[in-house]
């Protein structure tokens, strides 16, 4: 305007400026009016058009819906005793995303709760691996004073969530570790799989291993919910409504809690597995693998030190040996081999002469007893575990029929149990060897297989199934769930007379001139039948596998047994890894069977032994932890809990089992057994049988009992 006026008039008067002001003030007024209309429109848009949207957002600000973790279903034994239960608990979690100053908060928490440097380091490890709103457990089982002290300070500690709830509790701790498994907070991978708010609710845990993992969906239950009015900083102003949680369904097992605990504790400081099966139903009464982790401690989070302690242990406490440990079964396969011989038409009274070895062509295969057993029929072949008898007749019928019988009895099989994948092991035959190694079956392969060495690999559960089938004469299927409907056991297709022969031989193993005299039960009226087995560690051509040598090179000890002999009720298989042969397994089998008939007597026997081992498994673990804490402090390497550490260890052991064994080029040297000639009161750990001579090149030594 000024410009236009400038062209027409050079002189600018006061009046022209006044006109200019009038016009321009109208522009300013229009600007003001325009802004006014804009604001009024915007206000109307927000308050009317978008009202519903913003009302919802205000409501979701105001009301905080928090889930109440459901109480987890109990895991019960056959008599309703809990193997896994819940107990009321005060706990504290951290929400990483809400933390303002993690180090400062942790330092304060440490002071209030009395955490030591190791605890704080473990929490920091978990914080580093946790994402966003994934809660990190700080402490469980707090006493009321500490909990109250923390609750008072909570407003100053953003991201800290103290709450009362329920936590998992395993009354017998390590004794049920591998069977029941453990629980833990969901990790990022779990949350990716299942986008469920419940997974990131502090205090909620999912099954990580064993039955806890397999039955997670049933055990989990339905979370409760609490609607509360909260301030922006998360302070609850008032509760609006609360819905109770619905606890998860309990699981009833066939396990006998007392027997499970007894067996686990009876294994003592050895590394081994004990499985007990009810011969009438196939119910698994006990299934323990020791040493084990402590599920109580694992469920609270796996710390560096605890992990190091378990990982360092050469007894591999993280491996469930019952299902994932594979061992040559040694002479415990002989009853099955004998059944194959009988089926092939062999008269059990037909005998061979054992002079300490068997000559085939230009080779001699040795019996474990180099002095020879003299005239040996099938009964003596079993109770004296004569290798020559089995070498001789096994060759006549061939490996195919023996392998078929082994499989029929349960070796090489996996069973329908809710425990995940089982390592099935190997029952070799010529076709298998051709497939695996592209080599022909050799005589020494049969020699090895008939005494449970060479390529034969079994797991302790299979051993228990074999003996339950030997005892019952039926194709028993092991079962773990009490309410699972199982069809009556099938027929093995083996005549009763055959079983009578085998059982009579197995009775004499213990009650006659056999290799297992020390297994005799302390009840004059209850006879037990069994079969011992000692097996050389695979891949080691080492002459002496007895207790004196390095632990890793000692023979594995097996004992399979059932009782009462005349009316089989219970079948039991014991494996002691590197126990130095069957003498390590026999007394454990005896005591576990004793428990089934007289619990007090069994506990009394254990009471004399446990102090010498340093107490119960729980006490020994605690003592070891204290030693580690003193020795390593906070210097242990961190644990990667992003996956499932225990599952990783187990799958690693599966992978190791799946790698081909070295191809056998000769007969394996048989491991010694406690001979019948050994005096009965020989100490359990020192077998009295003569040690076999080292294998001469080109010659095989026989052994096993």
């Amino acid at each position, binding site marked *: *305007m*000024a*410009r236009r006026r*400038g062209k027409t008039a050079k*002189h*600018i*008067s*006061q009046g*022209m*400026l*006044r006109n*200019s*002001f*009038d016009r*321009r*003030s109208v*522009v*300013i*007024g229009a600007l*003001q*009016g325009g*802004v*006014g209309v*804009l*604001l*009024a429109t*915007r*206000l*109307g848009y*927000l*308050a*009317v058009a*978008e*009202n519903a*949207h*913003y*009302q919802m*957002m*205000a*409501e979701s*600000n*105001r009301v905080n819906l928090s889930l109440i973790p459901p109480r987890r279903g109990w895991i019960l034994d056959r008599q309703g005793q809990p193997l896994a239960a819940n107990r009321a608990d005060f706990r504290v979690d951290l929400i990483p995303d809400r933390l303002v100053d993690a180090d400062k908060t942790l330092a304060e928490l440490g002071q209030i709760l009395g955490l030591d440097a190791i605890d704080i380091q473990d929490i920091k490890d978990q914080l580093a691996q946790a994402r966003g709103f994934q809660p990190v457990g700080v402490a469980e089982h707090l006493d009321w004073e500490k909990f109250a002290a923390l609750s008072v300070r909570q407003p100053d500690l953003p991201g800290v969530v103290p709450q009362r709830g329920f936590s998992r509790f395993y009354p017998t701790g390590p004794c049920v570790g591998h069977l029941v498994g453990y629980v833990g907070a969901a990790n990022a991978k779990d949350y990716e799989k299942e986008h469920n708010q419940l997974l990131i609710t502090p205090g909620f845990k999912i099954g990580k291993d064993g039955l806890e993992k397999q039955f997670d969906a049933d055990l989990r239950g339905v979370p409760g919910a609490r609607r509360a*009015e*909260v*301030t*922006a*900083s998360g302070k609850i*102003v008032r509760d609006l409504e609360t819905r109770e949680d619905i606890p998860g369904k309990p699981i009833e097992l066939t396990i006998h809690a007392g027997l499970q605990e007894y067996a686990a504790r009876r294994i003592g400081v050895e590394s081994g597995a004990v499985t007990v099966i009810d011969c009438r139903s196939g119910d698994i009464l006990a299934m323990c693998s020791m040493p084990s982790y402590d599920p109580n401690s694992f469920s609270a989070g796996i710390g560096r030190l605890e992990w190091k302690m378990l990982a360092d242990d050469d007894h591999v406490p993280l491996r469930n040996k019952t299902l994932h440990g594979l061992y040559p079964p040694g002479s415990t396969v002989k009853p099955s081999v004998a059944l194959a011989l009988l089926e092939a038409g062999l008269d059990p009274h037909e005998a061979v002469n054992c002079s300490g070895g068997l000559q085939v062509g230009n080779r001699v295969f040795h019996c474990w007893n180099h002095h020879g057993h003299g005239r040996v029929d099938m009964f003596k072949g079993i109770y004296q575990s004569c290798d020559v008898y089995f070498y001789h007749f096994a060759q006549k019928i061939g490996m195919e029929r023996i392998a078929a019988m082994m499989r029929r009895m349960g070796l090489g099989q996996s069973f329908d149990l809710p425990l995940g994948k089982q390592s099935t092991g190997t029952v070799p035959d010529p076709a298998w060897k051709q497939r695996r190694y592209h080599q022909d079956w050799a005589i020494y392969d049969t020699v090895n297989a008939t005494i449970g060495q060479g390529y034969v690999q079994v797991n302790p559960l299979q051993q228990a199934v074999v003996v339950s089938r030997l005892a019952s004469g039926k194709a028993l299927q092991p079962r773990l769930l009490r309410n699972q409907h199982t069809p009556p056991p099938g027929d093995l297709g083996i005549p009763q007379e055959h079983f009578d022969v085998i059982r009579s031989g197995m009775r004499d193993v213990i009650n006659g001139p056999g290799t297992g005299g020390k297994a005799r039960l302390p009840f004059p009226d209850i006879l037990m039948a069994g079969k011992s087995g000692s097996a050389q560690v695979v891949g080691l051509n080492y002459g002496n596998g007895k207790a004196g040598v390095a632990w890793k090179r000692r023979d594995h000890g097996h004992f399979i047994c059932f009782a009462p002999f005349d009316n089989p009720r219970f079948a039991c298989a014991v494996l002691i890894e590197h126990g130095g042969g069957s003498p390590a397994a026999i007394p454990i089998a005896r005591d576990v069977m004793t428990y089934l008939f007289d619990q007090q007597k069994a506990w009394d026997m254990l009471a004399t032994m446990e102090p010498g081992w340093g107490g119960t498994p729980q006490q020994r673990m605690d003592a070891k932890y204290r030693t580690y804490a003193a020795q390593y402090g906070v210097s242990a390497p961190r644990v990667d809990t992003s996956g499932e550490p225990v599952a990783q260890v187990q799958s690693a052991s599966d992978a190791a089992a799946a790698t081909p064994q070295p191809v056998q080029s000769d007969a394996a040297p048989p491991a010694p057994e406690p001979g019948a000639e050994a005096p009965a009161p020989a100490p359990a750990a020192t077998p009295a049988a003569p040690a076999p001579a080292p294998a001469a090149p080109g010659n095989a030594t026989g052994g096993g009992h």
Partner: protein
Amino acid sequence: MSSRSIIPAPLRQQPWHVLLPLAALNTFGSAVLYSAAGGRMWPWAGMHMLHFAVFLALAMAVSRVPRHLFTQAAFPAYAALIVLLVLVEAVGRIGGGSQRWLNLGFMTLQPSETMKPVIVLVLAHFYANLPPAMIRSWRALVPAGLLMGVPAVLVILQPDLGTALAICFGAVAVIFMAGVPIWWFVSGGLAAGIIAPLAYFFALHDYQRKRVTVFMDPESDMLGAGYHITQSKIAIGSGGIFGKGFGNGTQSHLEYLPESHTDFAFATMAEEWGLIGGYFILAVFFLVLFRWGMGVARRAPDRFSQLLAAGMTVTIFFYVAINMMMVMGLAPVVGIPLPFISHGGSSMMTNMLCIGMIMAVERWSKRASTLV
């Protein structure tokens, strides 16, 4: 006009057409602050009323100051404030940290706040004394630009972008209405269009830059700076037409709304009083106060009082426009309170000074018309 005989003359002569709407606005503001404090008079609502009473008296006093005192005081007041601004900067530097206040012992003084009406006063005085012929020459613009630029730069250094913008906006409005050639504004606008992006990248502080980016997309930073805008929109939007009722605002009472008693007081109000309350405030500002202010300016007897009244109105307008655009998500978050509603003594004082000067101009024009 029968009331004339009943109501005594001194009372009748008061500018009730301004005082009554102002009182209504401040009372409403006190009610909002009462609710924001969780149903308590203190610390905000009572203080707000006290501020209003004190500064209303100040405004009444200002309105009675003779015109020649305004013109005489214009440059000395401006110079004093510049000195104080430099002093604030110096004290801040020495004290090791930015600050906007000077502690005078008996009160804290915020010179940048007082500069808003004073820049208008000094520019009105400048243009009133400028010979009309020079209005199209550089001598109309360069001194005015310097008068505006020096305090603006000092305030930006504090750093207080909001107040600096307010000072510039009032000053530019006066320069515009003084009649300088329009193409200067066009080219100035073009220059600003070029400088603004450059300033964004090179001159602004990180926190200021963040406010701008967050304003463009509030949801990009839900827990940081965008949180303010989002929560404010939730408060306003959830209020609906009639609001949630006095004392029932959840956004403010549960502390989701930040600064619910100062910068975001309008959102606090809108949540409880709804669209109705919002339109009441808009009406008082736009239909009553600004129309009155611009009307006073148009009717003013001389150039100085015209520019003074219009400049003061624009200064209040700037507060209102920026604050309300901010709380409704139309402008970035800059710390500017809503006049007469938000809690705070400094802004109350500034706005009441503006009102007082407009009332003064209104008195002069009455006297002028009576004389005529």
